[in-house]
């Protein structure tokens, strides 16, 4: 079984790897590139723990082949903070105690970031539906939703201050 | 003397009494003397039980003192999630 050579961009860096045709993007991220921030909770697109964005589009990396990433731009949790500067969502998740065990946290953060990029002022209902594909079994979602809404409010405030 | 109450189904393995009068200063003495008097209790005691002394549950501490003339309860060993 011959491997496929893939050139892609991950968190802004050009990255090359060899993968088997049946390897998912998640397999490549975790096992080949050892970027284990992206988690596998189900492998069937039902839990969202493996959320990443591909060309700005939120997807489950377990439902995409590694070979499909050729020429694309992939963003993962490892690229969310800017050096030592956390993304506001990361800060708010800590402040609101929006994580207990933390296994679903990377997926929630990546998915929530994608929401706020499209909709800087989501309602609670819009937020809950956008994140419905991200399962959390610890928190009952309450503090996660609050953290996302609070981040959105703060980011809007900063934007208006900057303007 | 200590008054010992065994949980229902364990009680039936002993003498099916409301309570048992036992001479014991701590948990291990209590379990030993009950076990010697009613050998059918031993396997359960060996697997582990909890003992409630004045409302507090003790699972392992053999030497936990039992106040004289107090009433204690022998219960299944607890587990949790």
């Amino acid at each position: 079984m011959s491997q496929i050579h893939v050139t892609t961009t991950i968190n802004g860096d050009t990255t090359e790897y060899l993968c088997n045709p049946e390897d998912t993007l998640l397999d490549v991220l975790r096992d080949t590139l050892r970027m284990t921030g992206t988690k596998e909770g189900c492998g069937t697109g039902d839990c969202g723990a493996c959320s990443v964005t591909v060309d700005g589009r939120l997807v489950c990396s377990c439902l995409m082949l590694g070979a499909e990433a050729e020429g694309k731009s992939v963003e993962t949790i490892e690229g969310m903070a800017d050096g030592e500067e956390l993304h506001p969502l990361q800060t708010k998740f800590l402040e609101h105690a929006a994580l207990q065990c933390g296994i679903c946290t990377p997926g929630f953060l990546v998915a929530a970031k994608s929401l706020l990029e499209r909709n800087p002022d989501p309602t609670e209902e819009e937020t809950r539906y956008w994140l419905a594909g991200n399962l959390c079994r610890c928190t009952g979602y309450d503090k996660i939703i609050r953290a996302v809404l609070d981040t959105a409010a703060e980011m809007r405030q900063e934007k208006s201050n900057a303007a | 003397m200590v008054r010992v109450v065994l949980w229902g189904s364990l009680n039936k393995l002993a003498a099916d009494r409301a309570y048992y009068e036992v001479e014991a200063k701590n948990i291990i003495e209590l379990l030993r003397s009950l076990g010697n008097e009613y050998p059918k209790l031993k396997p359960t005691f060996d697997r582990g039980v909890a003992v409630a002394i004045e409302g507090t549950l003790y699972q392992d501490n053999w030497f936990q003192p039992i106040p004289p003339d107090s009433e204690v309860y022998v219960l299944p060993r607890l587990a949790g999630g």
Partner: protein
Amino acid sequence: MPLDSDQDTKPRTSFKYVGTRPIRPDGLEKVTGKAKFGADTFATGMLHGLILRSPHAHARIKSIDTSKAAALPGVKAVVTADDFKIEQEPGEMANVRANIMARGKVLYDGHAVAAVAAVSKSVARAALKLIKVDYEVLPHVTDVDEAMADDAPLLHEGMITEGVEPAPTKPSNIATRYEFGHGDVDAGFAKADVIVEREFKTAATHQGYIEPHACLANLSSDGSGDIWVCTQGHFMIRDSVCSLLGIDFSKVRVQSSEIGGGFGGKTTVFIEPVAAALSIKSGHPVKIVMSREEVFRATGPTASSSSRIKIGATKDGRIVAADGLFKYQGGAFPGSPVEFGAMAAFACYDLENVRAVGYDVVTNRPKQAAYRAPGAPMACYAVDNVIQELADKLGMDGIDFRLKNAADAGTKSSYGPVYPAIGLKTTLEAAKKHPHYSAPIGANQGRGVACGFWFNFGGQTSVSLNISPDGTVNLTTGTPDIGGSRSSYCLMAAEELGIPYEHVRASIVDTGVIGYNDVTDGSRVTFAGGLATINAARNAIKEMCSRAAQMWGIDVEAVKWEDGYAKPSGANAGDHEPLSLAQIAADAPNTGGPIAGHVECNADGAGVSFATHICDVEVDRETGRTSIKRYTVLQDAGKAVHPSYVEGQYQGGAVQGIGWALNEEYIYNDKGLLDNAGFLDYRIPVASDLPMIDTQILEIPNPGHPYGVRGVGETSIVPPLAAVSIAVSKAVGVQLSELPISPPKLLKALS
């Protein structure tokens, strides 16, 4: 364990750090993706392990031929039950041995039969296909009532029911009978003006942790080496693996990874002994990561239940007798939590005459594992439904009726002991006062109130607290942090030492570097670990005071510790400049060497815990769909060390209970095979299913803890089953008696 004699045993009430909401010490790693969970480590030369599982619910294994698999290039080891030779005493460890690798018979769909270790996942997958197992399929049973029938297929020929006198002569699927209670229920019912009797059923549910089981075993041929694993207890993993493989405990160092949820499901072994055996046999590190399908088919869901409840009361609303029969199936081996269910069932009420009988039954399902307040939710669900029906029949408000019969300090509990100070009435009174309880209810909506109880316990705990030269503190223990316990440890250590929270760092360390710790379960960690932390800090303070005493040339009795400083105290102490913890730490090399405080203890004195929940639902009468409109949790925490994580426990438990009530269930087809082994059809609540979960923390100090702390992790899953069920019954005007209340079931009840 006894507190230091010089400490007063009355719980402390004023705090500087405890009760605040600082950022957890492990937070940064978890929001940046750096935190290492079970599947996140790799070893040089690592092999991939895969497990072959039974396609049958019940079958005799006539033969297993692994030769073709072993011969496949890239396969380095194959194991079967024959590789677990060490005989175990009859009991739990023997059952675990037969569960991790089937012996003679497969007892459920997904039961492990063989395992391989290979250079890649694809080679391992190919190898599994080459293993030939010859099965003789046997009749199966998965329902608890059917399993108790005389003609039911027997899982364990020769299993005689325990707890029955005289012992039965005929084997059955009933492992044990339990009975609890006091008084004379028949005499009690004779005094009753109103009696309600009803039968209930609940489905088996899974803990549903998002992280599948994963481990990496790296053992040498003599059994020595390391295991990395996601677990609620790495000492338990070490002891189990070593017992099953005949290895000295001291040869194996087990490190728990960050754990992606457990809820009781990671308090036993499944893949770890298999990975260890494969590693020894192959001479390579072996990593096994379960698929989600394996998690559902082959780990430990909780029991399904069938129960009958009969409660009688007088016109004035006083309960005179309560009788409960509880039948739990805990899968293929004895050990369902029915005794805890029977003990907890009536624990919320002050009863003169009470009896609870429980049957532990085996069926062709995976061996159950603990799930948050094991056994209590389904029992309290049945009881509180009948309690509410009684209140309605008596024309009494549900909370008033519960208050009138609520257990309190001095009540002889339904399971035996007399309660010390407890918080049930406080939660009921708070619920009655809560605006939620008086808010208007719309059309097709209903409101349910229910109470819940859990025992809580302490257990074996070791904590080391080391003072660093710069005056910061390393706190190490061995109970995996499943939901923020490291921040609670740091808060309690900071409180005791009088230094900032940020100066204390807590870590969970491996079995080679700290004393024994029981698993993280029973809501024990913040209570027991906290108790040990506080006493470790007190031991360190004693040492620091004696160092100060030597510096000042005075008696140690003349030194007191205050706000992080050693200070001279008393008339003859003399006038000395107080010494800070940092100063004492800096001088340590010259004053006697390193300063530390250690505690190895068995922490008893955990206080029982109670909660009351209020739930509003709305039902679509045309489709049978139920939605949760509003939910409020009121629970006693003793003392909330980090309130945010206490609220998180309340909210998480409530939502797991909501899932149990509405949509979660193990569905078996007519072949006895699991039909919904995935998150698609095993339907745990998603964000859009829920409102915010309001919480109210009540603090009735636990006399058994220096800060009054009680465990809070488990009780919150107990009330929701009844609260939701009662709310739906009220919304539709039909008394429901089966969980989950899935739409087809509810629509059927409505027609």
